[in-house]
């Protein structure tokens, strides 16, 4: 089980803001094993959002190497990135980002649709994913009919429905009250135990970070602390 799911070396990202160049990542190295749970912490402006975008294949590094589940991502074009996001990455956002008009099952089916999966299989897998987050009885509810915690559960079901190599969770408890927040964290950890899905949580909440067995601190675009 020593296999590296995430293997990034010397990641650099430079944003051009007019005349100024902003160095968001300055040669960052990070390795993550399959099945690990880790949190990425850092003050705002530290580069942790940029790192999340890189690891989630939403953006390309300016330079450096990044292998996700054995595939080299740094040189991919837009469509290849879309494809690898579809197959290898599940996202959980702070503000849930569900389609407001679509039912829970339609929301969960979305990644499978872009994977061109047939209707019947899609439905079965979406229902299974919703059951695994405890929403088997809310399949046909729209987000407006669900509580915040339930909406985040739908988002988690959507993130894991295509059995990704990593799940990226960006402040998953940020918009929830403490009770629902704890429930969501517990759910994420349980799912990691059951499926051995690699879980990367970006947060600034120390309580959330305490629940993970590895914490990576980022400052000024480099890793300043990595404790397990």
């Amino acid at each position: 089980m020593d296999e590296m799911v995430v293997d990034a070396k010397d990641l650099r990202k430079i944003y051009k803001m007019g005349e100024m160049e902003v160095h968001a990542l300055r040669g960052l190295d990070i390795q993550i094993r399959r099945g690990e749970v880790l949190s990425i912490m850092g003050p705002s402006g530290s580069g942790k959002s940029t790192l999340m975008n890189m690891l989630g294949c939403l953006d390309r590094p300016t330079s450096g190497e990044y292998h996700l589940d054995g595939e080299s991502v740094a040189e991919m074009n837009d469509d290849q990135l879309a494809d690898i996001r579809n197959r290898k990455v599940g996202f959980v956002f702070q503000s849930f980002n569900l389609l407001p008009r679509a039912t829970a099952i339609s929301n969960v089916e979305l990644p499978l649709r872009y994977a061109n999966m047939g209707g019947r299989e899609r439905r079965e897998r979406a229902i299974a994913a919703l059951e695994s987050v405890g929403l088997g009885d809310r399949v046909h509810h729209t987000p407006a009919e669900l509580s915040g915690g339930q909406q985040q559960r739908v988002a988690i079901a959507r993130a894991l429905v295509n059995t990704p190599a990593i799940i990226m969770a960006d402040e998953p408890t940020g918009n929830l009250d403490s009770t629902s927040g704890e429930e969501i964290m517990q759910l994420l950890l349980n799912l990691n135990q059951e499926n051995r899905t690699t879980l990367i949580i970006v947060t600034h909440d120390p309580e959330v970070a305490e629940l993970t067995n590895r914490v990576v601190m980022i400052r000024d675009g480099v890793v300043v602390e990595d404790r397990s």
Partner: protein
Amino acid sequence: MKIGQPIIEALESLASNKLRSGLTILGIVIGVAAVIAMLAVGRGAEAEITGSIEGIGTNLIFVFRGGDEDVRNPKPLTLGDAEAMADPFAAPSVAAVAPMLQGNAEITFSGESTSASLVGVTPDYSYVRNWTVTEGSFIEEGHLLGRSSVVVLGVDVAEELFGRKSGLVGETVRIEGQPFRVIGVMEEKGGGSFGSEDNVALVPMTTAQARLLRRSTADRVDIIMVSAIDADSVDQAGIEISDILRARHRTAIGQDDFSVMNQKDFLETAATITNVITIFLGGVAGISLLVGGIGIMNIMLVSVIERTREIGLRKAMGARKRDIMTQFLVESSLLSLFGGIFGIILGWGIATIVSKIAAASGTPLTSQIGIDSVLLATIFSTAVGLFFGLYPANRAASLEPVEALRYE
């Protein structure tokens, strides 16, 4: 992604904003409705006109005064011209010639009064028009020579004055105050696009010239109707007539001061007019569809901005450029397709109402909606949506996922 799913999603998205969708397609609806209605009514009118032109008979030739545009002071047609055309040696293809004087007159009978078209004719009129009396007799040579005060009534005039169509021979009516003896009643012809042909009173040519329809010169006539010996000789008869008139009027080549038209010429003229109208309608259609298309583009751009986060999310979930593009193109195409469909329904309604109004006011006009105009409207409006959706869709597809997800 397959095409079925985007269609369902686009329908959901359009349905969630019904008022906006409705207002957006209004331009397309009105444009398509106008075109469908106008084409339908136009075709109905065309069919009606063609029908009545065909109704005048295949052998008929009309000769009018005035010809090529730059001819000044065209000589009027005269009885002498008509007689010359009837010469079997100069014009062997001509069977009979019927000069006419035309005008309107007030006809009265014991307090009843009606306005009818008054025509001064010769005995050949009956033969040339292939139109005979149901009772009594037609105007004869003797009536012409004597400038007799006799009249043959059309059915409508008879109905209007006497309330019956028969038993009228021997009665006396007044035309412009002068007494005329009824010698016959024409058979019923029915109405055409040029008005009812039965609302007519026929008097001897000479009587009309002398007392009713005075012209500047005594032997002048308005129209000369000629029948050719058979349908195949119509063109030849036209050539012969033209030669005779050119000689008599002493006109140069290309300076004809008269026009010779047969049924085919009328049909061609009608077709030319219809074509011009069709091109004009096409222009109107093009402009309204253009305006409608710009409306669609505008709303689609707004929609792309509103749904920036949704687009970001879809991209994060693995949507490729092409998927987003398809989604928005399907939406704009469906929008304008609906506009086209509603426009066709509305246009059909308008055309039906126009037909009803026309029928109620006595002009038979059956509007015809061709399957081709329906197909054209459908395809064209969808194409407009597709074209004007391209730019917004491309903008949506080109959004960076990171930027789009961060958009508030």
